[in-house]
């Protein structure tokens, strides 16, 4: 199977999305007859014809992106609009998606998955499912050991897709992790946020950039 892999992250090569895609493609390419062809949306969106050609020539396509304000990033929406002329023309294309976010719950990304199903319907493509995951922000910047299990699931999912042309539901669930936070976790988060999450992540970055004292600035007032 020839798989067109579209990295829709505005961060491009420096993205956590890239690491997820590499894990998927590792599994997919275990079958030597399978080939991944990787493209970055932030680059190909500059060329409308290239966008349409990429999809028209694909028998299978994997589009991966981070959640930006509850749905696709603007640059991915632009890619989709570039391909508006393909309405009903992708009947021979099977599409799968990876949607990741920085929030810990997978639930944030479900409307984006629903949107991609709708887009597939407009194109006439087969929607073969989405792999949705929260808590991905920082992937690639933290010790990779912390994410080994998640990446292993992604590789196994790639292998299934490469062999059977479908996603495995139990791997989708395993990859998704927490759909929502339990009540005890929701109650604990304000405390954990104050003493652990915010200092370890946001405050550390603010201090590294000499911006900690300005963290509550309101420059647009």
């Amino acid at each position, binding site marked *: 199977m020839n798989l067109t892999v579209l990295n829709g*992250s*505005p*961060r491009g090569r420096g*993205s956590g999305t890239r690491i997820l895609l590499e894990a998927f493609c590792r599994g997919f390419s275990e079958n030597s007859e399978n080939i991944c062809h990787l493209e970055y949306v*932030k680059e190909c969106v500059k060329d409308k014809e290239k966008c349409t050609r990429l999809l028209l020539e694909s028998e299978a396509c994997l589009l991966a992106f*981070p959640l*930006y*304000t*509850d*749905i*696709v*990033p*603007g*640059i991915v*929406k*632009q890619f*989709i*609009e570039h*391909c*508006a002329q393909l309405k009903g023309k992708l009947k021979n294309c099977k599409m799968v998606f990876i949607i990741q976010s920085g*929030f*810990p*719950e997978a*639930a*944030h990304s479900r*409307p984006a998955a*629903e*949107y991609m199903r*709708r*887009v597939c319907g*407009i194109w006439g493509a087969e929607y073969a499912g989405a792999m949705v995951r929260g808590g991905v922000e920082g992937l690639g910047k933290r010790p990779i050991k912390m994410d080994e299990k998640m990446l292993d699931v992604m590789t196994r999912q790639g292998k299934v897709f490469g062999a059977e042309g479908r996603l495995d539901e139990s791997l989708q669930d395993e990859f998704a992790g927490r759909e*929502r*936070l339990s009540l005890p976790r*929701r109650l604990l*988060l*304000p405390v954990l*946020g104050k003493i652990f*999450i*915010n200092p370890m992540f*946001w405050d550390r*970055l*603010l201090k*590294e*950039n000499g*911006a900690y004292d*300005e*963290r*509550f*600035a*309101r*420059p*647009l*007032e």
Partner: protein
Amino acid sequence: MKVVIVNGNPDPENALFEKYLSDLSGEISGRTGTESVDFTLRDMNLNYCTGCFSCWVRTPGKCIFHDDVEPVLKAMLCSDIILYCSPIIMGFTSALLKTLCDRSIPILHPYFVIDRGEVHHRARYDHYPKIGVIYQQEESADEGEFIRKVYSRIAVNMKTECIFAESIEKPVEEAVNELNCA
């Protein structure tokens, strides 16, 4: 009542949509006690959000891009309602409008809080405008319910609520009446 109208229509030839927004702006400005501030995104210099988080961890509250977005955010923060307006293209509002939404994260603070049962970001400002959506239906598809659902989620992220999601089939006067009641 101050209303910010953001026109996310990429196609100036879409006369039906442009006329609706022009009438809407006129109707709002013509009423006592209401005013509108209008922005047309296709005529503005608007970069895609690159997810660099500079607005959170380098220059808190300010984007690294010095393009035309900041005046929109400033107007938004001192308004009562922001109206996101766009034709539906490929099942959702335009890439132009989505890009503006992405570029709105400087008005939030990065810290995590629980809001309406989910993890979201903390408010940076005391006041955020309510959100309304005006859309133009795409061919025969009815995306209204989906649009309302997504913008309701965007509203939670933006520390506010989505009070209005209507197609341009709704008469302008009725739409403005509805905004006034919000």
